[in-house]
């Protein structure tokens, strides 16, 4: 039971919005945090999920136009993630 709970807790929720969601073809996923002892960041997730427009096999830099939110607050793309975090990738904002 305890191991089951820690397995659930060691996940992050990833959310995509607007044009980014439609390009990827999904809006929300739960992923395990990296288990190699190295803390996972939103930029790592961006590469893992191949969310950029670079051709397959080419490591895409995290784009300056995309903003990251962790648990509903803006955060740098290299912020280490914690179990249970909700990470959102936000395309350029066009409200108002």
């Amino acid at each position, binding site marked *: 039971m305890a191991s089951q709970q820690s397995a659930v807790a060691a996940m992050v929720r990833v959310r995509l919005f*607007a044009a980014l969601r*439609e390009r990827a073809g999904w809006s929300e996923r739960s992923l395990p945090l990296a288990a190699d002892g190295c803390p996972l960041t939103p930029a790592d997730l961006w590469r893992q999920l191949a969310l950029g427009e670079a051709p397959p096999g080419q490591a895409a830099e995290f784009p300056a136009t995309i903003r990251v939110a962790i648990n*509903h607050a803006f955060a740098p793309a290299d912020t280490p993630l914690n179990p249970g975090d909700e990470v959102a990738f*936000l395309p350029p904002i*066009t*409200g*108002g």
Partner: protein
Amino acid sequence: MDAATTSRPRLEVRILSRPFQPLALLEAWQSQSAATAADSPAAEGHFIGRVRGSTASGAPLEALELEDYPGMSETQLQAIAAACAGRHGVGAVLVVHRVGRILPGEAIVLVAVAADRRGPALRCVAELLEELKHHAPFWKREWSGGHGTWVAGNTPL
């Protein structure tokens, strides 16, 4: 109640998924600002934004679709309203933002600020509007000729 509590600005932030009448909301907000006409704030600044009838490329617009990030959009609007109100020392702020499908001519955003003087009231409205256009997570998609196109950036000031 201490002085700090009584001088805290009154902030009201609403995200609406149905059409709204900005003047009716403004009137309701004004009636909460003062018990009597003599208590009314000396200055108010207002901005009403409406959906224009054409797309960025000049084609006739059928509708504008507004997407938000439920939870974060409201939190950000609150934070922006509080920060702007604090910077300009105003008494009350109202921010109303539409989401969903919005037709040309319908209101998309309403910002109102009550203050003791016109300077802070008008400057706070202008600053709050620019802040929310750049830092509150909302995304526009223009529908024209049956096709939807995500808007790439804000229109010029």
